[in-house]
């Protein structure tokens, strides 16, 4: 068990954000957390890294747990000069060989000499992932990693995460704004809206013609899956009972 939360509640100021969250992640697990805006997805990740204190309940982390955190975005102050290479060595030194191979794996081998400020959003995201992986994390936290990616990019990203989880044997908690399409290899999908609305395995839809019709993809059956919510609906109104 890498991490376990029991009755975890978090409030910011007087506003309750999360209520009674029970969650556990084991090595090799991929847990996808989905929910509408303001449902507390990022708050959950921030509580796990310790940026926010639980108002109730608790989080149990396995001893000496190494966490790799990939934030949704990174604001870099323009007064701070920082090359990608230097950034990858914060806070712990990594060997040049490890840095080279990680950057190559992340698909951005040529960025090492660039300033962090000069990177595009997509490049920065890959660099952030590379940095998280350099620490050989036991638990990888990804905050909206597929935001801004199209379905093709999302499917490729999910393939990469699947490889990473096998090679590092780490657990993954991935937050996503997409309420319907999730990573098929997720052991569990958790639908969050302040509390856990429902959870379960993503539906296997490899032969579903509705799915293909919905998204127009032929090759991505092995990475994308639909998640059908149980017993509740989302006020956003965009829920479609696709399967």
């Amino acid at each position: 068990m890498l991490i376990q939360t029991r009755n975890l509640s978090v409030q910011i100021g007087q506003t309750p954000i999360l209520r009674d969250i029970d969650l556990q992640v084991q090595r090799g697990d991929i847990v996808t957390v989905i929910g509408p805006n303001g449902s507390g997805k990022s708050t959950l990740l921030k509580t796990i890294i310790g940026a926010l204190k639980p108002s109730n309940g608790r989080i149990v982390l396995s001893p000496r747990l190494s966490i790799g955190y990939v934030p949704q975005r990174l604001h870099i102050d323009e007064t701070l000069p920082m090359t990608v290479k230097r950034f990858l060595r914060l806070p712990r030194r990594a060997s040049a060989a490890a840095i080279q191979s990680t950057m190559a794996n992340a698909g951005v081998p040529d960025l090492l000499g660039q300033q962090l400020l000069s990177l595009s959003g997509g490049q920065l995201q890959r660099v952030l992932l590379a940095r998280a992986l350099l620490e050989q994390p036991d638990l990888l936290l990804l905050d909206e990693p597929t935001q801004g990616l199209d379905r093709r990019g999302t499917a490729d990203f999910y393939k990469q995460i699947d490889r990473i989880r096998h090679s590092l044997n780490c657990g993954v908690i991935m937050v996503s704004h997409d309420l319907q399409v999730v990573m098929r290899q997720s052991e569990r999908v958790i639908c969050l809206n302040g509390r856990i609305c429902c959870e379960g395995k993503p539906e296997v839809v490899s032969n579903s013609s509705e799915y293909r019709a919905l998204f127009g993809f032929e090759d991505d059956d092995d990475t994308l899956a639909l998640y059908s919510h149980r017993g509740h609906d989302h006020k956003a109104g965009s829920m479609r009972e696709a399967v």
Partner: protein
Amino acid sequence: MLDDFLIRATLAGVGVSLAAAPLGCFIVWRRMAYFGDATAHAAMLGVALSLTLSTPIFAGVLLISLLMAVTVSTLSGRGYAMDTLLGVMAHSALAVGLVAVSFLSGVRIDLMAYLFGDILAVGKTDLAVIWGGAALVLVMIGYRWSALLLSTLNPDLALASGISPRREQLVLTIALAIVVAVAIKVVGVLLIAAMLIIPAATARRFSRTPEAMAVMAAVVGVCANIAGLAFSYHFDLPTGPTIVCVVAFLFVALNVVNALIRRTNRQLSNGQNVA
């Protein structure tokens, strides 16, 4: 050698510049420019306190600066904005300090000496305090360098790596308090903030990494100190302000040179494109 007041003054200025450089970089990166200013203002209260209690100036200033640094660090993020807190504390501490000084009967103090510093009056003990404080600050910052840097870049990334950004902020504010306390005699209350920020700001355009920026800030600060001292000696100018004038001149000059170089490079590459 240390008997020469000019040598002592130079060594004092160099010591302060070395400690102020990396600290100044963090102040620039974290947008805490006003923090240095506020701590330096509050230090006036420390001067008054030391004179009242007949303790060394250094001790009183250190106490008040530490108090101020810790209070602001603790209270920020609890419903008060950092700059509001700094404004309240800096101005009231400075005012209380000045009022307190006026109550000291029979003591003739040269307030100007603490406002603008009196680097030429630095004695051997002062020199020891300055270099001791500077060494302590450099060791603190050097030891916490990576953690400080990551906390500055992004507190959440720091937390995920097991670093407490709050603790790092405390390290920084304590280091700042020490620099203010050792520097007050050299450059004075009003000019400390300038010595913290201007060398770091000068180095920004020429640096690709945080380390390079800190080193260059130190070089700029040391050069400005030596040149400022020389100017003030030869032309009989007030020393503290002259040092700051030199560092301000370096900031402007190097930025202009940098802009010109960039422009020339651009024109050259445009020319090549056309050809």
